[in-house]
C-alpha cells in the first residue's frame, strides 16, 4: 500500500523542476513545430484540401446539425434537481460531454475518411508525386482536421458559455417570482435558515441601529427583521451567489502535506504515516505469532514429530497486506475526543487572499441509518502555527450525507498603535497552514452509537494522501478562464483522435481503420476494469477457501492490462468536464501537463508511427486493386 501499484506520470521526477523544464521544452518544441508547419505553403494547401473534403462529406453536415441540436436543445429537456447549482452542473456536463462525443466521432471519421479514401481512390498517388514529403501530407491533414475542430469547438463552446451566463444573470428574477407569493413568516424563516446555514450574515437579515451599531430589538427583546421585500430580493439572489461561488468559478486546491493524529487539544500530533507504521508493526508481529502457534498446534495434532518454525512467506505477505489495509482505514477513523490536523502548503504563485479559503471535506459513518439525519458535532480550528495563532475554534454540526464547505479566513488585518495596517496571513513563515478537525461527539453509555467518524483523506488504492479527500481551496480565477482551459483539454483529446484516425488509415482501408479505432476507443473506456484486474492480480472475481481464484490467462491479461492502463490512463484521466462542473480550477500547470502527455507523448508517438508507415507504404496497392 505504500507504493503506487501502477506506472504514473505523476512521478517525483516528472513533477520536479527538471521534469517541468523538460516538459516545457517538449511543449515549446511541439507548438513551435506546429507554427512552423502552418507557415509552410504546402502543408497549408493540404490542410485546405482537408477542409474541402470535410465539407463535401454529408456525414460532417449531419454531425454539425447534431451539434447544433444538442447544444441548443439539450438544456431545454434536461431535468436537474431544481437547484441553480444543479442546473448549471447538469447543463455543463451534458452539453460539453455531447460536444466532445460528437466532435470526437466526427474527427475520427473525418481523419480516417480523408486519408483512407484519398489512398483508396488513388488521389493520394497524384499528391505524392508533387514536391511534398509524405509526413507533410500527414501533418497537413491533421492540421486541417484540427482547424475544423477549433472552429466547431469554439462555436459550440461559445454557445454553451453564453447560455450559462444568460441563465446565471437572469436567475434572480426567476427566484424572486418563486418567493413573491410566500407569506411574511415563510420569508423570515427562510432568511433565518439561510443565516443559520452561513449563507447570510445576521445584519443582512435583521435591522441594524446604525448609530449604536447594534441589532434592533422589539419590546419582547426579539430582533426586528428587515423589510420583507428586501429579504425576498436578498433570498432571490442567493442561488446566483452560490452558483458563482461554487460552480461558475475556478477554485484550486492547496497541497495537503501531511495529516497528524491528535489525541488532545494540546497535543502536537504524530503523522498518520508514523502512527500507522508503529501500530501496524506491533500488530503484524502479534498476528504472525498467533498464526504460527495455530499452525504448530494443527501440525502437532496431525503429524507427530514435525515442527513448524516460521510462517510461510506467502502467508506472511497476506497477513501484512491485510493489516496494512486495516491500519490505512483505522488512520482515518476519528474516535470521540480525538482529531486530525491537516497541514496545507501555500500555493506556489500568488493568489487573492482577500477572497478567503474554503475547506471542503466529507464525513462518513458506516453505521449511519437511513432513518435519521444525524449531525456530527465537530470543532474546527485553523491557524498559521498549529497552536493559538488563528481564529477561535468553531463548534459545528455536520452531516455525513453531502460534501461540506466551510469558509476560512486567509488574511487578517491589524492596525498598530502607529496606525499602520499589518496583514497577517494564515500561512506561517514555513508557508504552511494547519486545520484541526476534532470529534466532539459524546456517545451515551450503553448506546450502540459510538460516535466514530471517518475522515476519508487516504487513497484506498495507494494508501497515500488523497488530494481530493479533504481540500482547502482558494480562488484561482473566473469561470471563463477555467472554461477555456477545459475546452483546451478537450481540443487536445480531439488532436489525439485525429492522429489515431490518420495513423490507422495510413495502412488500413476505411472500414478496417474505423473498426480498429473504435476498438481502441472501446478499450480506453474499460480502463476502470483493467485497473481492478491489475490491482487484484487476476481476472477472476471468485474465491475459494479465502483465496482468490486464478486463471491461466492472468499472466497475459494482467501484464497487457498494466501496459494499456499506463498508456491510456494519463491521456484519459485528464477529465476537465467534471472539474469544471465542480468549480475546480484546471490550472495552467495541469493544462501544460495534459498537453505534454496527450500531445507530447501519445500524439507524437502516433504521429511518428503514422508518418513512418505512410512514408514507407506502397500507395498504389489499395483495396480497389484486390
Amino acid at each position: 500500500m505504500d507504493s503506487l501499484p501502477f506506472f504514473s506520470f505523476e512521478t517525483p521526477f516528472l513533477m520536479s523542476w527538471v521534469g517541468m523544464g523538460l516538459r516545457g521544452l517538449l511543449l515549446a518544441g511541439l507548438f513551435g513545430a506546429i507554427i512552423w508547419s502552418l507557415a509552410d505553403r504546402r502543408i497549408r494547401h493540404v490542410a485546405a484540401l482537408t477542409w474541402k473534403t470535410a465539407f463535401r462529406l454529408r456525414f460532417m453536415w449531419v454531425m454539425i446539425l447534431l451539434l447544433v441540436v444538442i447544444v441548443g436543445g439539450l438544456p431545454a429537456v434536461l431535468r436537474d434537481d431544481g437547484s441553480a447549482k444543479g442546473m448549471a452542473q447538469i447543463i455543463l456536463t451534458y452539453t460539453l460531454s455531447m460536444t466532445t462525443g460528437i466532435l470526437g466521432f466526427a474527427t475520427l471519421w473525418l481523419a480516417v475518411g480523408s486519408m483512407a479514401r484519398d489512398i483508396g481512390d488513388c488521389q493520394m498517388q497524384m499528391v505524392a508525386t508533387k514536391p511534398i514529403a509524405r509526413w507533410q501530407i500527414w501533418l497537413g491533414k491533421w492540421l486541417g482536421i484540427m482547424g475544423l475542430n477549433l472552429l466547431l469547438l469554439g462555436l459550440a463552446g461559445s454557445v454553451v458559455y453564453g447560455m450559462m451566463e444568460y441563465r446565471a444573470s437572469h436567475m434572480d428574477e426567476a427566484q424572486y417570482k418563486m418567493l413573491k407569493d410566500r407569506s411574511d413568516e415563510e420569508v423570515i424563516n427562510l432568511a433565518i435558515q439561510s443565516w443559520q446555514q452561513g449563507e447570510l450574515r445576521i445584519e443582512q437579515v435583521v435591522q441594524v441601529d446604525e448609530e449604536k451599531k447594534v441589532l434592533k430589538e422589539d419590546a419582547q427583546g426579539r430582533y426586528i427583521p428587515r423589510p420583507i421585500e428586501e429579504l425576498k430580493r436578498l433570498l432571490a439572489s442567493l442561488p446566483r451567489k452560490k452558483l458563482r461561488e461554487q460552480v461558475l468559478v475556478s477554485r484550486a486546491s492547496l497541497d495537503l502535506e501531511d495529516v497528524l493524529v491528535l489525541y488532545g487539544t494540546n497535543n502536537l500530533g504524530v503523522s498518520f504515516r508514523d502512527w500507522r507504521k508503529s501500530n501496524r508493526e506491533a500488530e503484524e508481529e502479534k498476528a504472525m505469532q498467533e498464526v504460527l502457534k495455530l499452525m504448530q498446534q494443527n501440525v502437532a495434532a496431525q503429524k507427530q514429530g514435525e515442527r513448524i518454525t516460521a510462517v510461510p512467506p506467502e502467508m506472511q505477505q497476506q497477513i501484512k497486506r491485510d493489516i496494512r489495509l486495516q491500519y490505512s482505514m483505522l488512520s482515518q477513523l476519528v474516535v470521540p475526543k480525538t482529531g486530525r490536523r491537516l497541514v496545507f502548503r501555500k500555493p506556489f504563485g500568488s493568489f487573492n487572499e482577500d477572497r478567503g479559503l474554503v475547506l471542503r471535506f466529507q464525513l462518513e459513518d458506516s453505521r449511519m441509518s437511513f432513518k435519521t439525519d444525524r449531525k456530527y458535532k465537530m470543532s474546527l480550528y485553523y491557524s498559521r502555527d498549529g497552536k493559538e495563532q488563528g481564529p477561535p475554534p468553531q463548534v459545528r454540526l455536520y452531516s455525513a450525507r453531502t460534501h461540506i464547505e466551510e469558509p476560512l479566513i486567509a488574511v487578517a488585518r491589524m492596525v498598530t498603535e502607529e496606525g499602520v495596517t499589518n496583514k497577517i496571513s494564515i500561512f506561517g513563515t514555513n508557508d504552511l497552514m494547519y486545520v484541526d478537525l476534532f470529534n466532539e461527539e459524546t456517545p451515551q453509555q450503553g448506546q450502540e452509537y459510538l460516535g466514530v467518524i471517518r475522515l476519508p483523506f487516504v487513497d484506498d488504492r495507494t494508501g497515500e494522501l488523497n488530494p481530493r479527500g479533504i481540500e482547502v481551496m482558494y480562488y484561482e480565477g473566473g469561470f471563463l478562464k477555467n472554461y477555456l482551459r477545459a475546452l483546451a483539454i478537450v481540443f487536445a483529446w480531439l488532436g489525439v483522435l485525429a492522429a489515431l484516425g490518420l495513423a490507422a488509415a495510413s495502412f488500413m482501408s476505411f472500414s478496417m481503420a474505423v473498426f480498429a479505432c473504435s476498438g481502441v476507443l472501446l478499450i480506453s473506456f474499460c480502463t476502470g476494469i483493467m485497473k481492478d484486474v491489475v490491482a487484484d492480480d487476476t481476472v477472476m472475481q471468485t474465491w475459494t477457501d479465502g483465496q482468490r481464484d486464478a486463471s491461466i490467462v492472468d499472466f497475459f491479461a494482467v501484464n497487457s492490462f498494466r501496459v494499456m492502463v499506463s498508456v491510456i490512463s494519463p491521456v484519459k484521466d485528464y477529465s476537465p468536464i467534471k472539474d469544471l462542473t465542480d468549480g475546480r480550477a484546471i490550472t495552467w500547470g495541469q493544462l501544460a501537463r495534459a498537453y505534454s502527455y496527450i500531445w507530447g507523448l501519445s500524439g507524437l508517438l502516433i504521429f511518428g508511427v503514422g508518418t513512418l508507415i505512410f512514408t514507407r507504404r506502397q500507395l498504389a496497392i489499395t483495396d480497389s486493386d484486390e
Partner: protein
Amino acid sequence: MKTKRAKTLDSLPKPVLLGFIIVLVALAFVVQERLNTQRGELSNAYLEPLQNAPPMLVLTTQALSGFRGIISSYLWLRANEAQLDKRYQEQMQLSQWVSQLQPTVPTVWVNHAWNMSYNLSVKYPDQETRWKYVQEGVRLLRDEGIKYCPQEPLIYHELAWIFQHKIGHNMDDHHRFYKQQWMNNMTAVLWENQEEAQALRGVPNFDALINPPTPEIAERVSDLRKIYKLDPREMKAVAMKYGRSTLPNGDVVDALDWRIPETHSIYWAHMGLKRCANNPSRESAMRKVERIIYQSMMYAFERGKLVVDPATGNLGFQDVTKGMGAIAGGASPDLKASWWTIPNLDITENTHAAYIEMVKRANEVRGEDTYSTFETAHFNFMRRAINWFFYYHREDEAIKWLEICANRYPEKFVYYPGYTPGDGFKKGKVNLDEFVFYKYEDDLKRGNYEKTVGLIRGLLIRHFLFLAEGDEVEGQKYYDKFKDVHTRYVNRFKNAAANRVRLLGREAFEVMVLTDLLANEGPVRAAQLRTAIGLAADEWPKHSPPGSGQ
C-alpha cells in the same frame, strides 16, 4: 451511345418509388397487428410493443433495438458512480433515461423510484428538495411505471409502500412536511377548501366527483385524474370496502380520511390487486400487495384520525422551524404546530376484515401456511385494538374484541392473565386493566412515536375522565403512568432530530387532551371535568408558552 444511356432506366423514377413506399407503409400498418400477435404466439422472447408511449420513446426503443441494454447499463453505472461520489444533480435525468430505455422491465421502475424517494431525497437537508425527490419516486411509478407495466404487482406494491412508509411513517426528519404537502395537494383537488375537508373529516363527496355537478368540481376532477391518476369510481370502491363502518350506535360512517397517505397506500394496493389478478406468473409478487393492504389498514387504524385543535380549529403540524422565535415574525414552536394523529377506532372492523380476507386468500389461493405471518400480525392488531378501546374508555368494545381474538387465536393467549384454557376469558370476570398492562413494559420499550402519542392520549383521557367521575385515586394512577411513559420516551429519543419523533412537553399534551375532551365529551361530562380541575364555565385551558413543558 450517349442517347441510348439517356433513355435507359437504371431504376424507377423517384415519384414511383415514393408511391411504392407509401403503399408498403400502409400495408405494414394494416398487417402489423397481426404480425405482432403471431410473433407473440411463436416466440417466447417476444415483448409486446409499447402502448401509448410518446413518439420519442417509441423511436428510441425501436431505433436502439438490442443496444438499449448496453446504453441502459452504462447510464445505470453512471448513476451509481455519481451517487457514490455524492453528485446528485443528474439522478433525475439518468433515472428517466434508464427507465425509458427499458420501460417494460418493472424492476427498473421500482429500483429508481425507491432510489429517488429513499436514498436521494435524504441527501438534501431542505424539506422542499426532499419532497421533490419523494414525489419524483411516486411520479415515476404512478405516471410511467403503471403505464408501461399495468399488470405488474411490484409497481403497485412499491407505490403503496412509498405512501405508507416514506410519507406515512416517521423515518424521515421531514415526514411531517411530506404529510402536510400531501394533505394540501389532496385538499386542493378533493374539496373546495380546507374547511370543507375538515367538516367532512377527509371524506370527499364521491358522487359529485364521479358526476361533477359544477365546472369547478369538473376542473378539480380533471386534475385528480391527470395529476394524481386517481379514479373517483375506484376511490369510492375503496371507501366502501375498507372505510365504511357501522358504529355501535348504528350510525354508518366513511372512516377513511383521504388526506392521509395510508389511504392512498390502500388505494394503490387495491388497484394492484384488481389489475394484476389475471397475471398468474406474478402470483408470488401479489403476496406483497396483499400484505400492503392489511398493513396500511392497520396504520390507518393506528394513526388515521387527524386531530384538530379545538381552541383554534386548526389542523396542527409539528413545528419544523425550531428556534425561529428569536426573530419577530418567525414561527415559534407551539401547540398549533403539531401533526397529531390518533387511532381511528372506527375502522377496527374493516381492518379486521382485511386481515381475514388476506389470510383466506393466502390459504385458499396459494395454500400458504399463514399462522406465523399474516395471522400473527392479525393477532397483534387485535391486541392493540383491545388496548386502544380500553384507553379510550370504550371498555365494552374492548371486551368484544378480546373475545373475538381469544376465540380465533386461543393458543396465543395461554400466558395472559385471566385466560382459562377451554373457557377463554370469562365474561364479566375479565380484568381489562390487568390484561392491558400485562404487556405495558414491552409496549413502552418498543413503542414508536405514534404508539406513544396514542398511549399518552389514552392515559390522559382515562386520567381526566376518572377525575370527572370524582375518582381522584384512579385518576392519579393514570396520570403517573402518563408521566412515566412521557419521561421514558423522552429519554429514549433524546438524541433524535427535533422535528422527527420528539414529543411535545407534558403540559402541552395535557392542554390538548383536556381541550379536546371539553369540546367533544358533551356538556354534562365537560361541566364535571371543569369542576374537577377548577375551570370556570366556558373557560378553556391556556396554551403554555412556546417551547415550555418539555
